């Protein structure tokens, strides 16, 4: 299963993606959790410390292709080997890879960026499930950062700005020919929130997660909600989401 979480900044993409990755790993899948955002986010929600889990520059080499410099993984290094070597081992057996932390005002992330993309391009053929946490907003999410994904989960909370972002993402997905795209409504407070939000984004409703004060506390403590409140409403809702997507994949 290869999914990518997108949506406005602060709607809970990382919390849901981190929980999703761990729940999926518990079903026996080999899971790589990917953070495409240079600021730390997914690590907290997976329950690992905040250290860098990126690809070092020297795993990427330059070569001349079509009269311009291109990048590829160092000779002989497969995507799986790169993950086994550089991705951090995380709770429930999830492997965690990060684009790399922003290292200051003049950080050149060209190599890290292309190395990351090269790994992603190889993994689907090597039997990995991928759970991606994409940068917030609407900047080219579908065919660049998320091009490995079979399913895009647009996370929306029931606020006007978040719904508007969801609508913009739905339009972009359509323009870019993205594969399956659906909405996961987060911080649901009223019974009709999920249906109302899904309807306003024009996307099929794939999941619904109630407003969870325990998640607000976990975010304050910098710990994974799955460790802070293992059987709470967020864990239960993400469990249902994983189950319904698994059933969907199997039915195809």
């Amino acid at each position, binding site marked *: 299963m290869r999914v990518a979480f997108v949506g*406005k*900044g*602060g*709607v809970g993409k*990382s919390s849901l993606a981190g929980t999703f990755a761990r729940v999926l790993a518990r079903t026996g899948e080999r899971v790589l959790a990917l953070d495409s*955002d*240079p*600021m*730390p*986010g997914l690590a*907290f929600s997976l329950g690992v410390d*905040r250290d860098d889990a990126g690809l070092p520059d020297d795993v990427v080499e330059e070569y001349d292709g079509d009269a311009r410099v291109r990048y590829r993984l160092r000779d002989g290094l497969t995507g799986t080997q790169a993950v086994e070597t550089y991705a951090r081992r995380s709770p429930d057996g999830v492997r965690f890879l990060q684009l790399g932390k*922003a290292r*200051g*005002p003049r950080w050149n992330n060209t190599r890290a960026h292309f190395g990351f993309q090269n790994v992603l391009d190889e993994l689907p053929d090597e039997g990995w499930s991928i759970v991606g946490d994409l*940068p*917030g*907003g*609407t*900047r*080219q999410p579908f065919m660049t950062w998320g091009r490995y994904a079979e399913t895009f989960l647009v996370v929306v909370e*029931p*606020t*006007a*700005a978040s719904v*508007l*972002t969801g609508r*913009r993402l739905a339009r972009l997905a359509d323009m870019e020919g993205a594969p399956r795209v659906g909405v996961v409504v987060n911080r649901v407070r009223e019974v009709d929130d999920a249906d109302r939000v899904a309807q306003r984004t024009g996307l099929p409703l794939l999941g619904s997660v109630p407003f969870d004060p325990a998640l*607000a506390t976990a*975010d*304050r*403590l*910098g710990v994974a909600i799955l460790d802070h409140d293992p059987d709470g409403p967020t864990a239960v809702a993400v469990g249902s989401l994983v189950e319904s997507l698994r059933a969907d994949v199997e039915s195809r």
Partner: protein
Amino acid sequence: MKIAVVGKGGSGKTTTAAVLARTLARQGQPTLALDCDSNPNLGISLGLGEEITERLLAVREAVDAGEEEHAASADELVRRFGVDAPDGVRLAVVSAIEHPHPGCPCCGISPEHLLRELVMEDGVVVADFEAGLGTVMRLDGRPVDVVVVVVEPTAKSLEVGRRAADLVIETSLGRLALVANRVRDLDDVARIAAVFPDLEPVLVPDDQAIVEAERRGLAPLDAAPDSAAVRALVGLAEGLAVPAPT
């Protein structure tokens, strides 16, 4: 005075920028609100509603697609592509676009450069920046006078905010103000103080009135003018209107 509002996505940047802009405009200063986010939502928080907010983005996308004439100057950009918002605020969406014309004042330059170009001798610019640190890193050359770092008391938001504040301090980007949103209790206050022992934050309480305004797509200043959260942000605007002690 030019003010940049920065922080992690979802920490309350846009709400803060909107209350700042309208409060400063109410004091009689010509005020320009710049939405520098590629996913622009400032119009909603200013009270313009979804339709106008979406129309501003459509104009920006039309320029990007080559369907709309580019503006010849920063001022023309604001005049042609901006709209009037409540309290006399002028709002323009100036997010970076995918296909800029090199050298074009309305698109070939970043929001940071545009901020440098705009002449506001007796007025105010409030720029709501894209989330994260990228834009703060590009603020060198001091295009703004004040940087407002917005955080909420979560581990992630505080970390982003701390790094933004450090950048502002290390590179002398301007006067630094810290806004701490969604403060629930004394534990939250302690969390913020632990990360920012050097700064006196404006504490904005976690306020159901703001949640409700955001759900309804209304400006907090219109929907909940007397709420504790809005009053705290109005207080920040009033503080910024007074020159910093030297």
